[in-house]
């Protein structure tokens, strides 16, 4: 697959961008995480499970998840006005749909779990980085999860299937396909295709995305493990 094709930033087709992850980065939130993938930077806070106002929105037999994906005005090439765009409304929904699958919602009836995502810098793959950060922030909040959710985009760029597109690649790509999955359960929780692919291309792209998610999952686990270890260390 890595057939000698070199990308705008020098990466191989199946190579992720450099990743930084941290949890517990905010003081007031119940859980928080910061994720960098290349120049893309997202910060996520989780509040809850907590009592829901107004109460008639609550569900008697499970928690409800509320999610806001929002871009900082300085995160984009042209300044973004703070009012939510249609794109932000859609991404808030698909991220909520993707992330909710991992939460034991039935454990927390009548409550809300509120996920706030701020994209601090946008250089492609913001929804995937957001999902990766949500997963960490939920774990950081002590909310029991079926599995960590790991997410990455793949795309078709000048005929080649590539992993983890940056903004320049994304804008020139023939197709862009973000996915999210629970790797241990092998279940897909987000899948979108924007663009045109043959069935064969889709399969190749999809398999590359799964591979990318596995790599990201390792980094997520390592991030949580190191925190856990340091806490244990402190306790000792």
């Amino acid at each position, binding site marked *: 697959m890595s057939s000698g094709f070199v990308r705008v930033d020098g990466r191989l087709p199946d190579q992720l961008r450099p990743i930084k992850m941290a949890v517990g980065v905010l003081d007031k939130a119940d859980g928080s995480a910061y994720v960098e993938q290349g120049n893309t930077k997202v910060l996520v806070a989780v509040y809850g499970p907590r009592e829901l106002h107004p109460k008639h929105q609550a569900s008697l037999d499970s928690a409800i998840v509320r999610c806001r994906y929002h871009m900082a005005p300085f995160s984009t090439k042209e300044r973004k006005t703070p009012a939510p765009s249609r794109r932000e409304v859609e991404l808030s929904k698909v991220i909520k749909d993707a992330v909710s699958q991992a939460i034991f919602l039935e454990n927390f009836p009548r409550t809300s779990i509120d996920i706030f995502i701020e994209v601090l810098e946008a250089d492609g793959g913001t929804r995937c980085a957001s999902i990766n950060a949500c997963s960490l922030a939920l774990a950081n909040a002590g909310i029991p999860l079926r599995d960590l959710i790991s997410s990455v985009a793949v795309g078709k760029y000048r005929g080649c299937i590539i992993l983890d597109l940056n903004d320049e690649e994304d804008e020139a790509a023939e197709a862009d*396909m973000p996915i999210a999955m629970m790797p241990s359960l092998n279940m*897909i929780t987000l899948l979108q*295709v924007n663009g*045109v692919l043959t*069935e064969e291309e889709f*399969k190749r792209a999809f398999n590359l995305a799964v591979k990318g998610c596995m790599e990201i999952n390792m980094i997520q686990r390592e991030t949580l493990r190191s925190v856990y270890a340091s806490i244990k260390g402190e306790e000792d």
Partner: protein
Amino acid sequence: MKTFRVVSQLVRARMVDLLSKNSRIDGRGLLDYREIKVEKGFIGRAAGSAQVSIGSTKVLAGVKVELGEPFPDVPDKGILTVNAELVPLASPAFEPGPPDENAVELARIVDRALRETETVDLKMLCIEPGRKVFVVFVDIYVLDYDGNFIDASSLASIIALSTARIRRFRVEDGKLKYEDGYMPLPIRHIPVTVTLAKPNDGPFIVDPNLEEELSLGNRISISIDELGRICGIQKLEGTLSVDEIFKAISIAKDVAPKLIDIVRRESGLNV
């Protein structure tokens, strides 16, 4: 969206049980659409319009074409814009007000399939680069909601577009000149959308009705064009395994040609 009346546990259990026997609660085969009816052109003030019913789900799409300015980053192309409203006539769960997340998602799913396939040849709709182009508005109205408004909206939109007629024009030195008569929009492809659903343990069905949508938990919309290309996917609720996704695509590719034939028949489109 307010919560819908909950489907009773009994109905849900019966539904899943039937599915395990390759049968559905309304008697359809697993991969059958409900009856699809099309009424086209009945909004005289629109350049094109189509009302599509799938069972009792009913969607009206209208196309207007007006003059406007191009986006600065694509100065030599016309503009296509898709807007969807879940009007409160359609369901006790829809409320008046600006489009909610479901309406926005619907519009963006339809928009993406049209945009990514370059179904409307927007270069043909440029009059004076950077200054004046045609803007094609597709407005989707969900009028009666009994499940699967995505496929109905997608179908209504492509039929409204492909049957639209605008005043015949030519461009001379960046000036718009109207001529006698009417001409179609430059439509190059026929993308349609197939929505599938499945219970956690059980087979895929296509075209879930409202009870099925509320009960089955896992849903995915796949857009396919007349060349058999995938031109859009949106996983909706729930989760699917890798194999299930490949299976869903394979089903969608099998089913899509029936929808594409409807578009060809209604529009006379020859692509």
